[in-house]
């Protein structure tokens, strides 16, 4: 006999299902309509480029959920629930296929292996997933879910899930028991559920089954209706957000057309693009971003999750007719806005590709350009940028002092070099970082690299101005630099500053400046591989490498620095717990180099303590700001005698015989 079961057994009036569904559908559609209307409050945004790449990302992150699976427990529970329900939903559709189109989905091997066994196992997985979720949420209570506040209503969602799943299995069990289904054990869940009912009478079976069947249907419909009004919305909004994600690097900020703009930055929620608003609706409140945020973990009021859910709640209130609070200042406080180092950890971590940085920077833009209300120390840095083209007010150096006696040529005096060394303001004006410039210049000379510098013609790339929120100043500085670079026909650039690297590489092209740029660690790694630099002098001891955010996370350069350290004989390289993609910020990015951290612990101290736990002789970095932060923090910790903060160029210079 062909394995099968009777479709809609015991449910003669199943056709009424559709009538019953109708009101629930109306409620669902109305909820979705409101949702779309909320999104349409935003500004236009183009997101449909590169369709295939978007689809690839969708499969990777919405279907296979790679980012969610980075946390094993959450990954497991989420995959079991989402795939479990997906399988059950597909099975339900397949039943409909047989009913309407006569395709025999409930017959033969397909029925046994897929419709019974596979689907049942998925259902059991979903039950397990709900179980783990309940234990974790209400038993283990991890901080990242509970703090800064519990805004979601996952409890209702999980309860609905549980009722739908359990009643589903009971219905199946009743049918198996009542029909003495010879293939019942192919549905392990249903078979188990059938056991208690074996002794029941026929009428009892039938009544109970019918009651539960309709109850199951109503709960399932209720879930559909409830979806747009609850955190369950993420089941639709999150996959949509993954599909429509920003494909650019996380370190890139979008330019404002200053000629045409009527406002600068965002002071009301409707001034964000609809894609940014979708970000808000897609947030699952998982708190992964918060867990890695250097501001939050050192006691600042900023949490990226908090920013997203506060903005989302504000958006909903505004859409419902009003929120008397100001977005900048009331909903999101100034302390929150000035705590972000733009380190990108939250972007890296978010399973659904939500981007807190541009939201924060838009509000900073409003404060800086429209209100002129921002921290005094940052004002001074920007004034210095306006007046002197660099943010190091009160420096005793000129742009070329570091190069005295080294025979470094300027482009103006050297014609066209093979490569331009973009020194950056920090290496030119900060005494400690001048040593890095010297080391790098000597290494390049030793390796026979034909380079020159712009000298007095170099300006700040504008990175601090842009990230503090002064887009106007950024565009002026960038414009001057691009004019200079293009005038000299510069094609190739090396820089020792990851911030300059990021800006020139990712942000200048939109303003008319496209150059091939490498970070000095990439160049030094190449020169070492080619044998043009030979780090042969032994360096005994332990070294650890701190990933600068704008080199690592924002631009994906992780290996060259490690290859360099690995090339030094004797040096033992130890990784900190938070390294590579999960590297922890030094605290100076996003313009916070010019901000006095008064709340909580200093980010740089937190990072330095992590490094000191490895007892390294060398704390290596590859960014002038990290170096300044570590110099300072190591002194405060009294460890500057035993642990030296060095730039990788300095480390290599020490190991290359005769280079110093």
């Amino acid at each position, binding site marked *: 006999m062909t394995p099968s079961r009777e479709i809609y057994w015991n449910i003669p009036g199943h056709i009424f299902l559709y009538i019953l569904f109708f009101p629930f559908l109306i409620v669902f559609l109305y909820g979705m309509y409101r949702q779309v209307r909320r999104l349409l409050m935003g500004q236009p945004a183009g997101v449909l480029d590169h369709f295939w790449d978007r689809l690839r990302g969708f499969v990777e992150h919405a279907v296979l959920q790679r980012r969610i699976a980075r946390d094993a427990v959450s990954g497991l529970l989420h995959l079991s629930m989402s795939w479990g329900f997906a399988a059950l939903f597909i099975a339900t559709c397949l039943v409909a296929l047989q009913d309407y189109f006569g395709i025999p989905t409930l017959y033969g091997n397909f029925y046994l292996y897929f419709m019974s066994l596979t689907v049942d196992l998925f259902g059991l997985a979903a039950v397990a997933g709900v179980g783990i979720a309940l234990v974790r949420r209400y038993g283990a209570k991890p901080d990242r879910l509970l703090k800064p506040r519990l805004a979601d209503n996952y409890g209702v969602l999980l309860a609905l899930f549980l009722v739908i799943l359990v009643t589903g299995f009971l219905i199946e069990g009743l049918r198996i028991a009542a029909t003495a289904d010879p293939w019942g054990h192919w549905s392990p869940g249903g078979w188990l559920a059938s056991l208690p009912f074996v002794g029941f009478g026929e009428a009892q079976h039938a009544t109970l089954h019918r009651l539960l069947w309709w109850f199951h249907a109503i709960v399932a419909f209720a879930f559909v209706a409830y979806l747009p009004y609850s955190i369950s919305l993420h089941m639709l909004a999150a996959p949509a957000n993954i599909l429509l994600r920003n494909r650019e690097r996380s370190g890139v900020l979008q330019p404002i057309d200053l000629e045409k703009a009527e406002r600068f930055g965002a002071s009301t929620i409707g001034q964000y693009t609809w894609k940014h608003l979708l970000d808000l609706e897609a947030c699952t409140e998982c708190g992964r971003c918060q867990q890695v945020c250097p501001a939050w973990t050192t006691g600042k009021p900023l949490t990226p999750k908090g920013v997203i859910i506060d903005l989302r709640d504000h958006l909903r209130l505004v859409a419902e007719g009003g929120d008397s609070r100001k977005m900048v200042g009331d909903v999101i406080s100034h302390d929150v806005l000035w705590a972000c180092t733009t380190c990108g950890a939250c972007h890296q971590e978010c399973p659904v590709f939500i981007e807190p940085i541009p939201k924060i920077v838009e509000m900073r833009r409003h404060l800086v*350009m*429209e209100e002129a209300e921002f921290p*005094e120390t940052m004002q001074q840095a920007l004034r210095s940028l306006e*007046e*002197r083209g660099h943010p190091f007010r009160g420096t005793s150096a*000129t742009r070329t*002092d570091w190069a005295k006696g080294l025979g470094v040529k300027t482009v103006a005096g050297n014609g066209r070099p093979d490569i331009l060394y973009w020194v950056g303001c920090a290496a030119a004006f900060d005494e400690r970082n001048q040593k890095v410039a010297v080391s790098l210049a000597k290494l390049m000379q030793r390796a026979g690299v034909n380079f020159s510098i712009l000298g007095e013609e170099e300006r700040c790339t504008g990175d601090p101005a842009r990230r503090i929120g002064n887009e*106007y100043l950024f565009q002026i500085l960038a414009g001057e630099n691009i004019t200079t670079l293009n005038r000299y026909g510069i094609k190739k650039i090396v820089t020792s500053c990851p911030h300059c690297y990021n800006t020139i590489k990712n942000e200048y092209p939109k303003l008319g400046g496209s150059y091939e740029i490498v970070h000095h660690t990439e160049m030094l790694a190449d020169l070492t591989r080619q044998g043009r630099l030979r780090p042969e002098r032994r360096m005994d001891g332990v070294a650890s490498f701190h990933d600068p955010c704008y080199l690592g996370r924002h631009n994906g350069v992780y290996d060259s620095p490690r290859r360099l350290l690995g090339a030094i004989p004797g040096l033992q390289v130890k990784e900190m717990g938070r390294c590579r993609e999960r590297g922890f910020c030094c605290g100076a990015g996003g313009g916070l180099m010019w901000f006095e951290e008064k709340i909580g612990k200093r980010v740089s101290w937190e990072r330095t303590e992590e490094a000191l736990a490895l007892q390294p002789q060398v704390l290596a970095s590859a960014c002038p700001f990290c170096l300044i932060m570590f110099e300072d923090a190591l002194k405060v910790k009294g460890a500057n005698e035993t642990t030296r903060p060095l730039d990788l160029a300095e480390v290599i210079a020490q190991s290359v015989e005769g280079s110093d």
Partner: protein
Amino acid sequence: MPLNIIVCIKQVIDPEIPASQFKIDPGTKRQVQGSHSLVISAYDQNALEVAIQLKEKQGGKVTAISVGAATAATALKSALSMGADEAILVDDPAIAASDQQGIAYVLAKATQKVGTFDLVLTGCVSGDWGDRAVPAFMAEELGIGCVSFVSRIEAKDGQVVLRRVVEDGYELIEAKTPVLASVISDDTNTPRYPKLKDIMAAGKKTIPTWKAADLVLDPDRVGSGAARVAITDVYLPLKESKCEMIKGDTPQEQAANLAARLRELKLI
């Protein structure tokens, strides 16, 4: 009471350049600008801030005046972007080489040409020459009182109360308007960061340039010919260092010789 305030600002070469970059042209005996930027002299910015705050509270009008070269227009634009209502540049070769008294005379004439005024504010000392002379001379020219080193001003009962910073505290001085005050910085008058829309609006404004003729100046009181102060020389202080080895066979002997030599030089 609404106040009409005149603020005199001067454009100077960025005073924050590294010392090694400070160069003097031996011919003109003036600092060489080179590639350095031009900024508003620091205390003049505090004066502007005081004026703008007063206007915001009392109503009235702030007019910025600068005597200088055509480049000073950028300084006046930033005054406008901070909140000055009007800006006037006085630029004429005939007055270029005036001394402090000459400049004070020109500023006073320009102030009178603007019309009625209740307050005249200047920085207490300029970022380049730093000889603190113009405010007093200017008050003299205008025939009004002068209060120096003022950090805050309040309007009260038709008068102004000026907070004058002195060595070990401050004095509060009540004065009838019009009065001139030279302004010193404190934490209430940090120059504001301008808003972008104000920067853009300032960029579009035209700044009138007044010539000597516009001010009906007495030619005998301006220019190098009228100057009563002549600069005979300007130079960078020379820093010399000499090295002298202290002799002695034992550390004790060396120490004794060192002490003796230091005493000889009257250093201990």
